[in-house]
C-alpha cells in the first residue's frame, strides 16, 4: 500500500506542477504582457474605410468650368489575386467589356499604381456589364464595379498647363504631405498646375467610415462616420476665350514657322524647327494672368484613373519636346532685344542717354579690340532712344553697355546699373505665380561669373567680367536668362508706370454652393522707376506702327491701322540651336491694359514667328476678328 501511495503521490506532484505552469502562463499573458495583446485585439476589430471628398472645380474668369468631377462607372481589379485568377478574370472581362485582353494585362501590370489599390481597368463601362460583374462576383475574383468620382477636363487640352492634372499619390508625396491632411495610398493628388498648387483648397477633407468587422472581414456595424467635406472651387483669372486664341495662335504660328527657311544657316537650306513655344497675357491693372499657353501641350483627361503607359512615355519622350513642361514659367531664354527695355531704362538712369540725346549708329560698335555689329550690319545713322527702340538698333544699346564697363571693372557704384534695373523689374527671381516649378532666370554679373568659374573652372575658363559681357547683356544676349512670364511682368511694371505686380492666377475661392469664401487680392509688389516713359512708349509703338519698325510687317494685316499696340521684338541667339523668336507687347497705347509675351523656340526672328502670334492675341484682346497666324519671312532687323 505504501508503494501505491508513493506512486499516487508522484502523480499528484506532476498534476500540481502542470496546474502551476498553466497559472504562470495565464499570469504572463493577461497581466505581464497584457497590454500588447489588448492593442492587438483593438486593431483586429475595426476597419477604417476612407471616403474621398468630391474635388472642387476649376473655373475660368467668367465661371466656365475648366475641371470638375463626374461620377463614372468604373470596373476595378484587385492586383493581389493569384496568377490563375488573373488569367481567368482578364479573359472574362475582355469578353464582357469588349476590351482586348492585352490592354487589360497592361493596365494590371502598371507599376505606377499602388499594388494595394484596385486598378481601374474600364471607365464608363456599360451598366449591363457592371450588373453582370456584381451579380456573378464568384466568377470575377477581385473585380469590383462601382461608381467613382473621375476628374474631367471638359475643354481637353485647353489651359492644360494652367490647370494641371491629378493622379494617384506616390510614395514621395505621401511622405511629404502633413499628417493632418490624411492622405492614403490610392488617393488622388494634384500633380501639376493649379491642381497641384491649390491642392489643399480643391481636395476638401476626406471622410471615413469606421466599421466593426468580424474575422472574415464582414461588416457588423458602422462604428463611426466622419463625413467628407467637398473641396472648394477655384476661380482663375484666365479668360477661356483669350486662352483658346492664344493656344491656337501659338500652334498655328509654330506650324507655319516650320515651313520657313532658317536664313541664319547660309550654308544649306534648313527649315525652322519651331519645336515649342509659349504665350502669356497679363492684365496690367492687377497682374492677373488672362491667358497662359505652352506648346506642345497635353490632354489632362489622359491622366484620370491611370494614364496609359504609352501616352505617359510619349509625354516624357525628348523627341516630343516635353509637352508637360509649362514653358511660360519653366522655360528660360535669352531675352534678346526685348531686354532693351531694361538697358534703355538703365542708360537713362545712369545718365548715359536722355530722351533727346542721340547716338551715331554706323552699324558697328568697337570695344577693346572686339567689334559688335547690328544684325546684317545695318546702319541707322544718328538715332534717338525712341528710334533705337523702333528699329532695334544694337549699336545704341551696345554703347550703353560698353560705357558702363569701366565703372563696373573698377567696382564703382552704378557700374552694374543694367543688372540692378533688371532685378528691380523682376528678373533673376521667380515671380511667385501660383504654379509649380517656376524658374528664376538669371541676371549675370561679375560675382556670378567668378562664382561659376570657381565652381567649374574647366567649363567656365574666364573668371573676369569682360567688356563683351556688358555689351552682350545690353542686348539681352550672353548669359542673361528670363522666363516668358518675367518678360511679361517687366513690361507690365513699365506700362503700369512702375507699379510692380505679382502675377495673379486665382481670383476667388468659392464653396460648393457658389458662395465666395475668399477673394485673392492683387499683390502690390512695390514701385520701380520709369524714366522717360513716354519716349519709350513711343518707341515701342513705332515697332508695330512706324515705318522701319521691326514688327511693322507682322502687324500689316492688323484690322486697325495704326494698331493700338506697342511692343518689342527679340531674336536671341542660342549656342547649337536656331534663334529664339520673341515678342513682348501691350495694348492699347494709352494706359495699356494688357501685356502679351510670346516666345517661340528655334523659330527665327522675333518679327517672323512670335510677333504674328502676338498679333492674333492682340486682335482677340481688342475684340477684333482674329486672322490665322502665318510666319512672316524676315525682312531684316531683329
Amino acid at each position, binding site marked *: 500500500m505504501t508503494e501505491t501511495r508513493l*506512486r499516487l503521490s508522484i502523480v499528484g506532484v506532476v498534476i500540481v506542477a502542470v496546474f502551476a505552469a498553466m497559472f504562470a502562463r495565464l499570469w504572463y499573458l*493577461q497581466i505581464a504582457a*497584457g497590454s500588447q495583446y*489588448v492593442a*492587438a485585439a483593438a486593431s483586429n476589430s475595426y476597419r477604417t474605410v476612407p471616403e474621398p471628398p468630391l474635388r472642387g472645380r476649376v473655373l475660368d474668369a467668367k465661371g466656365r468650368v475648366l475641371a470638375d468631377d463626374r461620377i463614372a462607372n468604373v470596373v476595378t481589379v484587385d492586383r493581389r489575386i493569384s496568377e490563375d485568377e488573373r488569367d481567368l478574370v482578364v479573359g472574362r472581362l475582355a469578353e464582357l467589356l469588349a476590351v482586348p485582353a492585352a490592354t487589360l494585362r497592361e493596365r494590371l501590370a502598371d507599376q505606377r499604381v499602388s499594388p494595394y489599390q484596385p486598378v481601374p481597368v474600364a471607365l464608363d463601362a456599360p451598366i449591363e456589364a457592371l450588373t453582370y460583374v456584381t451579380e456573378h462576383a464568384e466568377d470575377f475574383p477581385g473585380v469590383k464595379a462601382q461608381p467613382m468620382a473621375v476628374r474631367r477636363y471638359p475643354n481637353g487640352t485647353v489651359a492644360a498647363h494652367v490647370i494641371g492634372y491629378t493622379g494617384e499619390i506616390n510614395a514621395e508625396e505621401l511622405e511629404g504631405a502633413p499628417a493632418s491632411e490624411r492622405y492614403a495610398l490610392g488617393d488622388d493628388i494634384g500633380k501639376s498646375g493649379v491642381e497641384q498648387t491649390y491642392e489643399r483648397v480643391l481636395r476638401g477633407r476626406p471622410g471615413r467610415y469606421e466599421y466593426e468587422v468580424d474575422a472574415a472581414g464582414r461588416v457588423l456595424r458602422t462604428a463611426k462616420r466622419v463625413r467628407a467635406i467637398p473641396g472648394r472651387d477655384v476661380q482663375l483669372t484666365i479668360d477661356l476665350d483669350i486662352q483658346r486664341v492664344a493656344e491656337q495662335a501659338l500652334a498655328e504660328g509654330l506650324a507655319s514657322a516650320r515651313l520657313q527657311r532658317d536664313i541664319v544657316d547660309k550654308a544649306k537650306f534648313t527649315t525652322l524647327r519651331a519645336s515649342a513655344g509659349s504665350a502669356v497675357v497679363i492684365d496690367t491693372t492687377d497682374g492677373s494672368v488672362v491667358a497662359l499657353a505652352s506648346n506642345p501641350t497635353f490632354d489632362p483627361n489622359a491622366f484620370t484613373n491611370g494614364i496609359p503607359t504609352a501616352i505617359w512615355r510619349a509625354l516624357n519622350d525628348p523627341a516630343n519636346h516635353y509637352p508637360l513642361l509649362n514653358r511660360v514659367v519653366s522655360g528660360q531664354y535669352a531675352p534678346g532685344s526685348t531686354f532693351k527695355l531694361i538697358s534703355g531704362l538703365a542708360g537713362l538712369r545712369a545718365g548715359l542717354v536722355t530722351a533727346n540725346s542721340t547716338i551715331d549708329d554706323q552699324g558697328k560698335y568697337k570695344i577693346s579690340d572686339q567689334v559688335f555689329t547690328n544684325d546684317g550690319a545695318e546702319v541707322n545713322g544718328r538715332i534717338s532712344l525712341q528710334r533705337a527702340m523702333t528699329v532695334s538698333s544694337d549699336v545704341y544699346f551696345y554703347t550703353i553697355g560698353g560705357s558702363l564697363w569701366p565703372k563696373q571693372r573698377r567696382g564703382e557704384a552704378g557700374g552694374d546699373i543694367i543688372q540692378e534695373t533688371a532685378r528691380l523689374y523682376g528678373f533673376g527671381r521667380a515671380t511667385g505665380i501660383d504654379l509649380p516649378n517656376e524658374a528664376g532666370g538669371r541676371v549675370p554679373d561679375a560675382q556670378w561669373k567668378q562664382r561659376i568659374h570657381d565652381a567649374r573652372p574647366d567649363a567656365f575658363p574666364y573668371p573676369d567680367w569682360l567688356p563683351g559681357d556688358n555689351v552682350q547683356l545690353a542686348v539681352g544676349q550672353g548669359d542673361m536668362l528670363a522666363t516668358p512670364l518675367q518678360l511679361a511682368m517687366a513690361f507690365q511694371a513699365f506700362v503700369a508706370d512702375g507699379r510692380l505686380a505679382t502675377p495673379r492666377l486665382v481670383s476667388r475661392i468659392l464653396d460648393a454652393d457658389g458662395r465666395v469664401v475668399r477673394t485673392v487680392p492683387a499683390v502690390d509688389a512695390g514701385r520701380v522707376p520709369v524714366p522717360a516713359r513716354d519716349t519709350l512708349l513711343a518707341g515701342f509703338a513705332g515697332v508695330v506702327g512706324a515705318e522701319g519698325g521691326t514688327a511693322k510687317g507682322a502687324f500689316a494685316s492688323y484690322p486697325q491701322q495704326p494698331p493700338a499696340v506697342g511692343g518689342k521684338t527679340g531674336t536671341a541667339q542660342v549656342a547649337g540651336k536656331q534663334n529664339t523668336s520673341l515678342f513682348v507687347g501691350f495694348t492699347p497705347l494709352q494706359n495699356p491694359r494688357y501685356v502679351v509675351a510670346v516666345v517661340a523656340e528655334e523659330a527665327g526672328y522675333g518679327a517672323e514667328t512670335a510677333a504674328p502670334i502676338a498679333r492674333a492675341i492682340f486682335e482677340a484682346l481688342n475684340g477684333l476678328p482674329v486672322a490665322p497666324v502665318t510666319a512672316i519671312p524676315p525682312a531684316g532687323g531683329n
Partner: protein
Amino acid sequence: MAGLTNVLGERRSRLDTSPLRHLDLVLVGSVLAINVLGLVMIYSATRNGLVGDTGATYYLQRQVIFVVLGVGIMAGAILIDYHRMREWAPAIYGVTILMLALVITPLGSSTLGSQARFAVGPIAIQPSEFAKFSIILILAAYCAVHRGDLGGRHLVTVLAIVAPSLGLVMLQPDLGTALVIGVVVLAILAVAGAKGRHLAVLALIGITGAVVAVNLGVLKPYQVDRLTAFLDQNGDQQRTTYNLEQSKTAIGNGGVTGQGLFKGSQTSLGHVPEQHTDFIFTAVGEELGFVGAGLLLVLFGIVVWRSWRTAVLSNDFFGTLLCVGVVAMLAFQIFENVGMTMGIMPITGIPLPFMSYGGSSALVSFACVGLVANVSMRRFS
C-alpha cells in the same frame, strides 16, 4: 401533514442506507459549475451566428441537451456499482473497438480531414471519445488483478489490449485522442506497479511514434502545421500561427478582470477559429480575465484533486486505478487544451472537458466523473 412527515421520514431512511449519502458533492458541484460556465461561454462565442449563421442560440441549445444527457449518464455511472462494471468491461471494450473500426469505413463521415465520427441524423458520435472511457475501465480491471506484477507477460498483454484501439484512433487520424489514451495507459501502469524503466521505454515509444506519425505523413499537412506552430510562434507561416496568435491575443486582451461577458472583441467578432470547441478557454480568458480564467482552473483543480483523493481513499485497487485513469485523462486534457490556447503546448484537437462544445466529449467526461463519484461513495461499504 402526517403524510408529508411520512414521506420525508421515508426519504431520510432510504438515504441513510444508500451509498448516495456519501456522494462527493464538492466534486459533482464543481463539475456542474464548470458546465454552467461552459454553456455561458459557448453562447458568447457563437451568439453572433458567425460559426455557421445558424442563429444566436443554436449551439447553446444543443449543448444544453448534451449537458442534460451527460448529467443523466453521470447519474447512471454513479448508481451502478462499479464492481459490476468491472464484469462488463471486456464487452464494453469490444463494442468500442468495433465502432472504431467502423468509423474509418465509409459508414463514418469525415470532417476537417479526419474520419472520426458517425453522423446519426443531426448528431455526430465520436467513438474515439468513448474509447477513453472503455480503456480506463478495461485497464483498471486488468491491472487491478495483476497488481505489482506488470513486467513481462502482463505488460505485453496490456499493450495488446490497448493496441487495436490506439491503432484505429491513429488511422482516423486523431493524434490528440491517441495522446490522451497514451497518457492514461502510462498513468494506470505507473500506479499499478509497472517498473520505472518499462514506463520510460513506453513513453519513449509513444513520443517516437508521435514524431514518426508527424514525419511520415500519417497526419494531414494542416495537422502537422498546427502541431508545430507553437515551436515557432514568431514564424510568418500565416495560416498556421494565425490560430495561435488570435488565441493568445484573446486571452491577453482579457487582462485582470476581462472585457466583460459578451464584450470581448476577439470573442464576439469571431477572430478565434474553433472558439466554441477547442478554443473555448480563450473566450473565458478574454471576457472574464485572469480572475475568471483562474477561477476556472481552480474548479478544474478541485475536480482533479477530488478524483486523486478518491484514488487514494478507495477501498479496493480497481477503484484506485479507475480514478487514476480519470485523473490522468482530465489533467492531461486540461493541460493540453489550456496549454495550446496559451502557446505552451502544441495545437491538437483535444476538447476542454465540460467546457468545449460537443456531445461525445461531454457524455464521456460526465461518465468518467460519475465513475469517480461511484468509487468515492462506495469506499465505506
